[in-house]
């Protein structure tokens, strides 16, 4: 396909409260900083309260029309939780990439009901069946090492930044504007750890 490298459709998923909104805001900022057209869409309200959340971000060098990504049209799935990665896997196009946080949050249907949380063994085959690549990132662990487990979303952004052809500086400038001054160093380290986690992978 002849789509330019910076026409990118992102789908971000996770559980309410995991920081998907901050991550999608930064993705939108990065696009503006890189002089791309951008649209971002998310659903508020009922989707919070521990429910599963999804947001869409679309970049294009000229014009983005639809604010949402259709099923089978995402280039990148950024999942903050493994079950949610599987739930929205079908949004990826063949050849797309899933960046998945190695984190399970057990839903109430499992903890108080009869449902079963799918084991890690499903992850690789599911994404393989879609003809996509999956990168698993230990977001919470790396964030903890950087100083605070809450920076897991920034670790994930760091990992994501490695698979996109933009200079690291652009990401960093946008991050700086979104995080409080006193957490700058923490976030810098979290971002770097995320980048490194992808770099170190055997290709």
């Amino acid at each position, binding site marked *: 396909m002849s789509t330019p490298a910076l026409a990118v459709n992102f789908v971000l998923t996770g559980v309410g409260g995991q920081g998907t909104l901050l991550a999608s805001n930064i993705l939108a*900022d990065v696009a503006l900083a890189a002089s791309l057209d951008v649209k971002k*869409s998310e659903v508020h309200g009922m*989707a*919070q309260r521990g429910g599963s959340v999804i947001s869409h971000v679309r970049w294009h060098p000229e014009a983005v*029309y*639809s604010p949402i990504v259709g*099923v089978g049209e995402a280039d990148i799935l950024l999942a903050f939780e493994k079950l949610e990665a599987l739930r929205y896997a079908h949004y990826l196009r063949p050849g797309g990439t899933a960046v998945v946080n190695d984190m399970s949050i057990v839903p109430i249907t499992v903890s108080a009901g009869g449902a079963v949380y*799918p084991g890690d063994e499903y992850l690789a085959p599911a994404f393989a069946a879609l003809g996509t690549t999956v990168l698993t990132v230990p977001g919470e662990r790396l964030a903890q090492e950087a100083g605070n487990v809450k920076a897991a979303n920034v670790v994930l952004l760091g990992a994501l930044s490695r698979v996109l052809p933009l200079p690291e500086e652009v990401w960093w400038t946008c991050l700086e504007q979104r995080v409080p001054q006193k957490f700058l160093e923490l976030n810098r380290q979290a971002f770097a750890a995320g980048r490194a986690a992808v770099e170190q992978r055997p290709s």
Partner: protein
Amino acid sequence: MKRILSGNEAIARGAWEAGVYVAAAYPGTPSTEILEEFSRFPGVYCEWSSNEKVALDVAVGAALAGRRAMAAMKHVGVNVAADSLFYASYTGSEGGLVLVSADDPAMHSSQNEQDNRRYASFARVPCLDPSDSQECKDFCIAAFNLSEQFDTPVLLRTTTRINHSSTPVELGERGEVRPARKKFPRNAAKYVMVPANARGRHPVVEERVERLREWVETSPLNRIEWRDREVGIITAGVAYQYAREVFPTASILKLGVVFPLPAALIRRFAAGVARLVVLEELDPVIEEGVRLLGLPCEGKSIFPLIGELDPAVVRRAGATAGLPVDRPPVPRPSIPLPELPGRPPVLCPGCSHRGVFQLLAKKRVAVSGDIGCYTLGFLPPLSALHFCGCMGASIAVAHGAAQAGLGERVVAVLGDSTFYHTGLPALVNVAYNKANILLIILDNRTTAMTGHQANPGTGVTLQNQPTDVVELEPLVRALGIKHVATVGAYDVKEIERAYRELMATNEPAVMIARQPCVLLPESRRQWVPLEVLENCNGCGVCFRIGCPAILKSDEIDPVNNKPLALIDKDLCTGCEICTQICPHDAITTRDQMRLLEDSDHSSCALMPPGGAQ
């Protein structure tokens, strides 16, 4: 300067640039952020009104005072405000008046799907339908100009994907802000809608629609984009974006004004294309209009009537109908996966509604519910709410069932914000007509569901001014309820005692269960995660209250052969509901946790309350 704004932020910005002084709203997804954002601008008055009808009346009053005024609400809010919309169409106003309706196709956060473009033709007011944030801002300004030019309220209609999508917007300056009039207008023929005067106004309204029909023919809010003439698509709102995306070669008539429709423009467009197609979300509003012009077209025969559109849906439907799509649709892939567990929204850990619902579940009583976080009490394992229609319906539905002679007493349950919204008149009715129901007001001192907006029980206004709390107890008594009890919503025993007492009265009764929402900043500061003690035997009672912080551990009780409970300390807030209901005293109290903190955690073997058993 360009900034990325959500549709809601852009509408607020547009109102500000348009010189709006007064804005009133009741929160409701996807409209809520419009007023939250507007309240951040200097030189404005804005408020959370107690409900949408009140909000629209407030805006009408401000417009009668000569100011530009806006009311904003979700689609179903317009149902509540509809009475006011219809009179306002007849009266018009002195200053510009815009009603923002945020529709919710796919019901991401709503009890029903409805297409509020219908209200425009119904109430005879023009309707603008923006398709991105830039248009949200521009159309908002245009709506105020239109309102004043034609002396009519204007409906600015959006959908979730417009309200909650963010796109770049060119910012402008604040326009002229007209001062308020010195005097209230005194013009009975125009402003006093008794039958004789209203009969005079109806022809004015219809004549106004005719003038709008002329105006709309040349309005820059509509435009034709000529491309290939084989297929021509008439579209509006977010559907325009899907049309551009999926049918890049087709000619497009993009409507910014969806009522009244530009008849001549549509005819010209239809004449210029071989195949005429209407692409719109929800109802066939434009399609019906086009057909009324006698023009054959396709629309809902191709695209779905129900739910939200997206590029994939439009591509699939378009390809099936032989329309020129950008690329073939991909079939939904099959993925080797077991059935995935759902992740529905749930009552949060520490939710102040859980204490009441665990009792209602235990009593197996019939519960007529309402809309708010507490609606989630219907979910298993609690399953303790059996009816939920629209805001405020809980009380009168229980009342009606009681008056019909139902064989069991029904408990009505609603939140504080919902009580102020539409619960009040229903409770007056209960007192007056003596319905034998128990009402439980779940008073968490905020409008939690929509993101913690202030309400009359909160003590602050939208613009962060302190105000007097409208206390529930004297209010409920003044409405004529004799049996009123207030309990702490975390106090399981108290709730049960009050419940017994009030149920025994066999007269209208109200329980107020009070505890500030656990997500409020003051509450967060008091979180203390609890722990499960060694004497847990896996009886499972704590699993039945549906707390996300209580997990099944991998450890199995050797006698019971059931998993022991485990508390996720990252989620637990220490509400102690589970502590109180545990039959084996196997969950710590907050005090015990504090003691633990003080002593060395690891060396302290914790004893259940009352000592080892």
